[in-house]
């Protein structure tokens, strides 16, 4: 178990180094830091001066090392456009994204599992067929169209919910939350649905497929032959075996939820990291892009690591396998 965990941690560090190198390459070579900082008519002497002060004449590896150490200290340089530290910009917007992503994931998991189990157990019912059809449409509809549709319906036509922004927020230390105000909660509804819908249909289809697979297994047949109640078989044996892979996927999905938040945040002008990133791409604000890549990768890799380790804890077979390897 320990060896397995250790190996996974090392792997994660390896991935982060690769991503760090990519991020550094972008930061250093994609945009010319000098031309972004100095004015157009700066003399070449001035430029050289700045080059030196920024350490751009040092060997690349030294620069990479410096970049890495700085990144570890959460120092990503200055944004070209905002003229502010990137770290500060990201940190300001992180709570908005995390709150949105968490809400969407909780929504997607709850509904996805419920509907998935339902459609698997009542496979031939009208509602199950309808849900399966709707889920395919849900996967086909682009996220931004769903968002726009919701805005049109609930903000423009009905006027029930705010069409953009995060509503009023409350400050808790450095964290700003929208969960404590009515307008904050109201603002959260449509973005969460928009962001969660795709994941929900994904989880629903996955749960359905897994559950049908599990229901065909010998141990479920044997559980029937042992005379266990349908309830115990469906919601004990079958569900537990279904949820192990589903939770893994859903856990891994949390990472992509944060990435997909880019789209939702743009549609709803949600002041999160994703919106910041999209604006950075449009403005070619390389430091923000590089930093976003690093931060989001860190979140991904951490989640993957946790999910992997949790998975071995949940599944006794892997648990034992990992223990034997020790």
């Amino acid at each position, binding site marked *: 178990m320990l060896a397995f965990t250790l190996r996974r941690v090392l792997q994660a560090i390896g*991935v982060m180094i*690769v*991503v760090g190198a990519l991020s550094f390459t*972008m930061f250093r070579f*994609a*945009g010319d830091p000098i031309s972004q900082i100095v004015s157009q008519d700066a003399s070449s002497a001035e430029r050289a001066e700045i080059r030196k002060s920024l350490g751009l004449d040092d060997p690349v590896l030294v620069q990479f090392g410096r970049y890495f150490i700085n990144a570890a200290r959460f120092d990503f340089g200055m944004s070209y456009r905002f003229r502010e530290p990137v770290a500060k910009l990201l940190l300001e917007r992180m709570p908005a994204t995390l709150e949105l992503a968490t809400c969407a994931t909780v929504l997607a998991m709850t509904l996805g599992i419920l509907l998935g189990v339902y459609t698997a157990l009542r496979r031939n019912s009208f509602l199950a067929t309808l849900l399966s059809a709707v889920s*395919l*449409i849900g*996967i*086909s*509809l*682009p*996220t*931004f*169209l769903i968002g*726009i*549709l919701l*805005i*049109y319906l609930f903000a*423009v036509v009905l006027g029930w919910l705010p*069409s953009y922004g995060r509503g009023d927020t409350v400050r808790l230390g450095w964290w700003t939350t929208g969960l404590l105000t009515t307008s904050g909660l109201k603002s959260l509804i449509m973005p969460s649905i928009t962001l969660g819908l795709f994941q929900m249909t994904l989880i629903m289809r996955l749960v359905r*497929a897994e559950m049908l697979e599990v229901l065909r297994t*010998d141990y479920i*047949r044997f559980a029937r032959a042992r005379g266990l109640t349908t309830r115990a078989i469906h919601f004990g044996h079958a569900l537990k075996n279904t949820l192990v892979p589903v939770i893994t996927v859903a856990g*891994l999905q949390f*990472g*992509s939820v944060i*990435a*997909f938040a*880019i*789209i939702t945040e*743009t*549609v709803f002008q949600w002041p999160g990291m994703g919106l910041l*990133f*999209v604006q*950075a*791409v*449009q403005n*070619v604000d*390389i430091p923000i*892009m590089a930093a976003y*890549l690093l931060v*989001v*990768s860190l979140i*991904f*890799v951490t989640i*993957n690591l946790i999910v992997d380790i949790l998975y071995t804890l949940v599944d006794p077979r892997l648990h034992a396998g990992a223990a034997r390897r020790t």
Partner: protein
Amino acid sequence: MTEMLAPDGLDPATPRAGWAARALDSDVFYAFRRSPLAIGAAIVTLAFFAVAIFAPLLAVQNPFDPAQLELLNSRIPPLWSADGQAPFLLGSDEQGRDVLSAILYGLRISLLVGVLGVGLAAAIGIVLGLVAGYFGGVIDTVIMRIADVQLTFPAILIALMIDGVVKSALSNRLDERTMLAVLVLSIGLSFWVQYARTVRGSVMVERTKDYVAAAQLIGLPSWTIMRRHVLPNAMGPVLVIATINLALAILTEATLSFLGSGMPETMPSLGTLIRIGNNYLFSGEWWVIAFPGLALATLILAINLLGDWLRDALNPKLR
């Protein structure tokens, strides 16, 4: 009691070996004829391709040509509403662009980027998959590690990154055609992993077979063996992935364009049209966004249905 359900004709599972060739011969087309949904999806998909190809003949104007746009004709609602005006069947936008013509031309861009993007992704993936599977060892490890790392990130994020980097490298000197190429590149580099994995898997299986050993023995070069003997066996799954990915690629292009990182407004794709239309959502010109949105959703749904069906028909296990 595994044999309990043995009665003949109840078990639709097909044997795996060489299924692709045989399935394409008969079973798939038989199943296709029997599935109204698949036929419908195929017809809709083909129709989209047809109107995209013949757009210049069908459209009343060329929306990419600023000379053809009259500001006088701006914001005309669809023909059937009270203020409708011929020839603007689906109305026009702020710049006097006919919505239907814009959709037809936008469809061209969307499909072009989608098809080229998928083609590029498949090409990269197939080559890397062949190389990884055939040579194994360090090459294999390196390629598959990269694939693993990339797979942790959603394609849209990778595409956005590539887009941003290329833009900054070209310092915003971007005309429409370069932008189109950038989009194809972003999509190609975002979607290659699945092909590589599938092809590598097939190669690993085929590599151990006797006929490959025999081919090596008579001195055929590796590349010929791979192309002529190993690759055909992997084409079935690749086709399925390509179909499913076409929908994803079109969606990615639309999303990038919607986010403002894709096609510019001077040469709009469906995504760009939706981005433009989004600005008029509050002012009541719903048709500027509704019709492009509907077209995009229908197109993706049709291809998805087709891909879903194809996947089930070719191999239920590909899930």
